[in-house]
């Protein structure tokens, strides 16, 4: 008997069914690794206003390259600020330094500067600027506004103080001869001293321009000044009109010692006042003038032999108003700053002349009747030159010429003019004019006959010429015919264009698609 027995063998192959779970496992592993291990650090950034920030959408960029994304926006414990949780990309750990800066980039308009326009379409994003400190950090505080200066820019910080009323804010430029060389880093109002403190940054190599003769002033807006010389209007560039800036200049190479950073610098209201303050570096003297000379003000020029050698830098030059109440003469402070002359030798000359009573200031005669704002320096002995004091507030004084004699001279001239018998002159003049008129009439009558004949000829010629001209436009003339023909052609053309224009007017797309309608076809009469 044969026994049928099944022979079983164990299969050594793996079932194909296991492929699917195996693939699933691999994919899961990849996803888990990507989600958990293939990421950078998670950081928090504290921000005052999270306007425009959206969790899951707002990106963090460095040099326009995305390095992270905001994953969560929440409030801090005290509800004073927002906390942004940011998932950084892999490989960005080295960027997370304690002085790394973050700020929100959105559209900002300031004067004629507009930034962040691309965020109108793409939405706000967070910009990052890597710091220098090697200390690692995962918690940051965002800046409220973008940093004023670019990173790693060398330069110098200066403290300024300003007592004026013109507005300057962080970010406003610092200009040298109209060229931007720095920015205002911060501004704050000092209540105790009633002034505004600015910290400015001047980048290299422009920091070398700063010397002890450097003066700062606010350049913005429009300056009006009306005085006896006339109306002066000074305006800045459009950018300055809208934005404001601080300018500085050294004005010249005189006194170009190195700058001292111990005390804050004064910011003046205008270039003129900065310049006048700068002039105080030059040899300065005091003179006493009559209070009546209102034209002599700060900025009035002093001439010596026709050359501009000095300027009034302070008028009145007093340390207390009480002086004005008791004094008969007004002290003014003058600086001699002639550019073409060696200042030191000029100073020696002035000192010597003062000692020998040969130096005097007087009102420039040419300005007597006009603005009265110029002074002349004369070096001849004049009895009218009076020295009120030898010294005043530490300055040597220069004598001032007594103007009484000149004014008397003027009065004499005026009196002489007054004394002229104008009535007598006018009667005589009248008589003369009448005689001239009679003479002219006689002449006219005598020459009338001659003139008439000549006039008639001329008129006849003119009329003849006019007639010829008019004939050329006569109905039977060639010009008339040609004009007529042209007008008829134009008329015909307009008639021909009429239907087309009508069609376009009623159906504008007929320009492209044409006019589909056919003309109505007349039919024969039905009898």
């Amino acid at each position: 008997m044969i026994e049928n027995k099944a022979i079983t063998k164990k299969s050594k192959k793996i079932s194909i069914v296991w492929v699917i779970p195996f693939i699933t496992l691999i994919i899961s592993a990849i996803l888990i690794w990507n989600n958990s291990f293939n990421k950078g650090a998670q950081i928090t950034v504290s921000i005052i206003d999270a306007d425009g920030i959206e969790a899951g959408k707002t990106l963090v960029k460095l040099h326009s390259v995305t390095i992270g994304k905001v994953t969560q926006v929440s409030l801090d414990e005290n509800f004073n600020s927002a906390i942004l949780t940011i998932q950084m990309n892999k490989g960005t750990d080295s960027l997370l330094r304690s002085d790394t800066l973050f700020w929100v980039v959105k559209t900002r308009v300031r004067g004629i500067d507009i930034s962040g326009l691309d965020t109108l379409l793409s939405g706000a994003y967070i910009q990052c600027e890597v710091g220098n400190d090697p200390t690692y950090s995962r918690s940051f505080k965002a800046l409220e506004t973008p940093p004023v200066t670019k990173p790693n820019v060398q330069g110098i910080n200066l403290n300024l103080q300003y007592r004026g009323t013109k507005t300057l804010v962080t970010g406003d430029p610092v200009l040298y001869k109209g060229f931007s060389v720095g920015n205002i880093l911060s501004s704050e109002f000092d209540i105790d001293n009633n002034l505004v403190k600015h910290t400015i940054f001047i980048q290299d190599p422009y920091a070398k321009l700063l010397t002890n003769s450097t003066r700062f002033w606010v350049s913005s807006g429009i300056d009006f000044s009306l005085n006896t010389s006339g109306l002066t209007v000074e305006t800045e560039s459009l950018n300055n009109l809208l934005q404001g800036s601080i300018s500085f200049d050294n004005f010249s190479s005189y006194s170009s010692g190195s700058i001292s950073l111990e005390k804050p610098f004064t910011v003046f209201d205008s270039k003129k006042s900065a310049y006048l303050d700068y002039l105080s570096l030059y040899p300065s003297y005091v003179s006493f003038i009559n209070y009546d000379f209102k034209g002599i003000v700060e900025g009035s020029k002093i001439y010596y032999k026709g050359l501009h050698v000095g300027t009034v830098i302070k008028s009145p030059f007093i340390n207390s108003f009480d002086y004005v109440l008791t004094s008969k003469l007004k002290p003014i402070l003058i600086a001699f700053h002639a550019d073409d002359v060696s200042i030191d030798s000029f100073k020696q000359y002035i000192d010597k002349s003062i000692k020998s009573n040969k130096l005097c200031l007087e009102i420039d005669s040419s300005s007597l009747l006009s603005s009265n704002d110029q002074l002349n320096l004369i070096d001849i002995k004049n009895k009218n030159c009076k020295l009120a004091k030898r010294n005043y507030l530490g300055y040597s004084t220069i004598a001032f010429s007594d103007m009484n004699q000149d004014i008397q001279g003027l009065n004499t001239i005026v009196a002489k003019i007054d004394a002229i018998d104008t009535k007598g002159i006018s009667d005589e003049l009248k008589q003369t004019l009448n005689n001239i008129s009679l003479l002219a009439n006689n002449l006219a009558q005598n020459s009338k006959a001659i003139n008439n004949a000549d006039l008639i000829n001329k008129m006849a010629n003119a009329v003849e010429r006019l007639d010829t001209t008019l004939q050329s436009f006569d109905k039977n003339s060639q010009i008339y015919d040609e004009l007529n023909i042209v007008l008829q052609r134009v008329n015909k053309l307009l008639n021909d264009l009429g239907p087309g224009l009508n069609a376009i007017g009623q159906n504008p797309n007929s320009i492209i698609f044409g006019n589909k309608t056919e003309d109505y076809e007349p039919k024969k009469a039905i009898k």
Partner: protein
Amino acid sequence: MFFKKILTIATVSVMAILINACQNSSIDYNRYFLVADVKSSSFMDNGSIKLKLNEALSNGAVVIQMSDVSLYSATNHRWADKLDSQLKTLWVDRLICDNCKNLNFNIYVSEFNGTYDGYANVALAVQVYDKKQKLVFSHDYKQSLALEQDGYNALVSALKANYIEIIDTFNTDFNLKVKNK
């Protein structure tokens, strides 16, 4: 990229077809001329005949009255020359009077159009003045002529024939009046 190119080509082709399909089928360059058989001297204007045309007929197109209150000006069927000029030339050509040189004719044509029911209407008023500006003759004429066939040619021919008939009637009336004076 390839699909984009295909799409662009297809769109341009469809647009070209549409534009071509919507173009006008034909344009008629014929212009109607009423004075082809008029002698040349009739074209010379001696200034004694002044003819004015109803403004509605002066746009250069053949006009058809579609109802009591509406007119239709054809787009493609237009006059070769100003209609008033042609009508005046016809008048000069057909006018018969002994003392025409000393007379001034004022003519106003109020109708010179077809109708929707197949007629050619002509209506005009004539005033004749002597050199002293005295009115010598005044009469209104109005006549309708049925179209024998369809189409603008038939209409224009009927209008011309009708107008000439009126001139002839005027000649008879005017000369009779002058004779009887």
